[in-house]
């Protein structure tokens, strides 16, 4: 076996040591890792740029339709307000009490021998009903019967159109005065009638329903 002398072993050892230098290996590793991270960062940045493009498009779309949307919202609010107000007003219109038909009914009930001298009618608060005080004089052989006839007739006639009808005498008294009816002298009585009834519906009427109208009194 030939003798092999390595006269450069110190240099070779130094070279090997330089190659195994942890700082150098660390730097190389750091460089590779840094490059990987940079690549990953660039990939993310590229994706972010794409997202930014999408954002710009979305913002542009929104800017285009925003004025129309704001106007539509404003108009919708306004329309809802109009619908609400109209509904409430229609409700009030529909639940009004019409006095003309009542006056017509009253006029129909009064016989020639039962004259009215005053009428005071009132719509009770919160539409709880109608209260009417009717004052008058009746003449006849039996003036109290004539007044009672008027009361009965009012009860019947008002009851045809309204509910909870009450027609009661507050006062019924004979008078000393004599009235001449058709050439005959008749005794007289003075009466005060309290009339109460409820023309208002229990449930709120449908706003879409056609509003009621008062009937005109026939000639």
């Amino acid at each position, binding site marked *: 076996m030939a003798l092999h002398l390595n006269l450069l072993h110190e240099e070779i050892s130094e070279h090997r040591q330089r190659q195994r230098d942890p700082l150098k290996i*660390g730097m190389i590793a750091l460089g590779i890792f840094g490059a990987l991270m940079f690549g990953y960062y660039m990939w993310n940045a590229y994706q*972010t740029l794409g997202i930014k493009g999408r954002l710009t498009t979305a913002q542009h779309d929104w800017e285009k*339709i925003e004025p129309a*949307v704001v106007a*539509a919202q404003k108009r919708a609010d306004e*329309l809802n307000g109009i619908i609400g107000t109209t509904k409430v007003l*229609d409700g009030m219109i529909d639940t009004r009490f019409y006095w003309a038909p009542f006056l017509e009914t009253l006029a129909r009930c009064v016989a020639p021998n039962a004259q009215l001298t*005053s*009428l005071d009618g009132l719509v009770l608060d919160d539409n709880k009903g109608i209260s009417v005080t009717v004052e008058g004089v009746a003449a006849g052989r039996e003036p109290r019967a004539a007044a009672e006839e008027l009361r009965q007739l009012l009860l019947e006639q008002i009851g045809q159109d309204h509910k909870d009808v009450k027609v009661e005498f507050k006062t019924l008294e004979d008078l000393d005065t004599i009235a001449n009816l058709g050439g005959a002298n008749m005794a007289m009585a003075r009466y005060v009638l309290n009339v109460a009834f409820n023309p208002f519906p229990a449930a709120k009427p449908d706003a879409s329903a056609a509003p009621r109208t008062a009937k005109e*009194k026939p000639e």
Partner: protein
Amino acid sequence: MKLTKDQLQKVILSGIGFVVLVYVYFTFFLGPLNKSRDSMLATINDLQTKIGASKNEMHNAITLEGQAAAATNRFAGLKALSPEGAPIAWFPPRIKAFFAKQNIEKSSTRLDNSSAFKQSELSAWMKNTWQIDLPQADFETLGKAVAQLENTEPLLSITRVNIKLAAEDPQFQQAALSASTIMVKR
């Protein structure tokens, strides 16, 4: 393999460098980038939701416009019943002219009170109560006039009727009406 002191120092130095690199990378580069991306994605989602909802809203507004046509016309009609100006300036003359047209020449109207409505829908409207005196009217003419008034003034509601014989002229009656009106606030 046993590391020399010098090599150990270098390993530690490399480790520190690595930690610093990772920290700087995540804190100053990838972190803000991801944060910005997440924020942009959230904004895009938000905008897309808004755009979707706004399309519905616009569609609803168009539908509502069609549905509200009747209400809008009715509202305009009711609003037109209140002319410009203070009600005290135009309502009494209007009532006087109305009754004159109904052959009731003498009439006077005065404002009793004004109040606002409790309902939020009627915040732009006022309730006025008027006292209408008709010192000379016969019952039939009065009945017809009341019917006409109730039919032509939908926002007027008669709350009290008082009719009595006119002492000096028995063929006529004296009438007093309390009427509440709904008018646009001016």
